[in-house]
């Protein structure tokens, strides 16, 4: 049995991190297909009444099925927090970049959707570290900005999303 997903980051130096720039991962597969239950749980959280998420008859006629909320994109390839296997769930490459920072926060996200993602699609993602900034000081603390680019595909190989994300990996300025 796995011990569950951990957000214990890879630690290392800025030079260690730079060695990961340009690395493209092997495809990482969603454990399950896009489902109406998760679509509607997310829409409920955001309180989005869009019938493309809720009205199966309408969504089938308009789109071919319930639409995956675009904002839930990254969630489809996050592994569940525990798996019945010996292998620990693999998190995003962004937090596997070795750096000194003890935590992170997202800084920006820029995503394109060439086509809709529908209920039943099973996605996989290929991730790449695009850049790691030199050390920066912000009001939150000192750390590095890590930019990644993820390409999401469905099972037939169709590119469904290109996701550029930048997070700030840092050590808080105020220690308890």
């Amino acid at each position, binding site marked *: 049995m796995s011990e569950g997903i951990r957000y214990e980051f890879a630690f290392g130096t800025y030079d260690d991190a730079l060695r990961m720039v340009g690395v493209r991962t092997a495809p990482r597969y969603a454990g399950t297909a896009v489902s109406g239950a998760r679509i509607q749980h997310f829409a409920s959280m955001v309180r989005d009444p869009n019938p493309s998420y809720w009205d199966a008859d309408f969504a089938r006629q308009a789109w071919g099925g319930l639409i995956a909320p675009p904002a839930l994109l*990254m969630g489809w390839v996050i592994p569940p927090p525990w798996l019945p296997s010996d292998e620990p769930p693999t998190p995003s490459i962004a937090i596997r970049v070795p750096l000194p920072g003890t935590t992170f926060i997202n800084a920006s996200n*820029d995503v394109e959707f060439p086509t809709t993602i529908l209920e039943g699609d099973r996605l996989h993602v290929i991730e790449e570290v695009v850049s790691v900034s030199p050390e920066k000081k912000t009001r939150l603390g000192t750390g590095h900005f890590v930019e990644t680019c993820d390409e999401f595909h469905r099972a037939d190989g169709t590119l469904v999303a290109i996701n550029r994300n930048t997070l700030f990996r840092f050590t808080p300025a105020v220690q308890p």
Partner: protein
Amino acid sequence: MKTYRRLAWEDVTVPTELTEVVDTVDYQRVVMNPGATWDYFPGHFDPEYAQRHGHPTIFVNTMHIAGFVDRIATDWSGPYSRVVRRKVSLLGSFYAGDSMVGRGRVVDKRLETSGENPRHLVDLEIAVFNQREELCCPAELTIELSP
């Protein structure tokens, strides 16, 4: 089948101010973040972790903020539209108990003919403030209207 409003590209006026949307996010809604998105980063469910890392309490994740931005856009453009691009800058966090205040406007509309099929696109700018009028998330969004 229930019918829904269809926004025609020809009827889009530039600029148009969108209706302001205010949504107060309590602890339950923040804790829904890990449940709904599977993002179990502890800053979204563990107040002690959040405080140890410089935050007053738990905060919503990027997917929730992006979902709020999308909701503002498609509330206006209707269900025969879809988000084709969204850029968000995360300048500040929304903590449990905060309100998200979204204000948007239509800034352009374009007929894109370079691809296989022409696309009727509408560009929006949406800014999300907290209840103290601090800008936490400026966003740019492009919507495609179904013909």
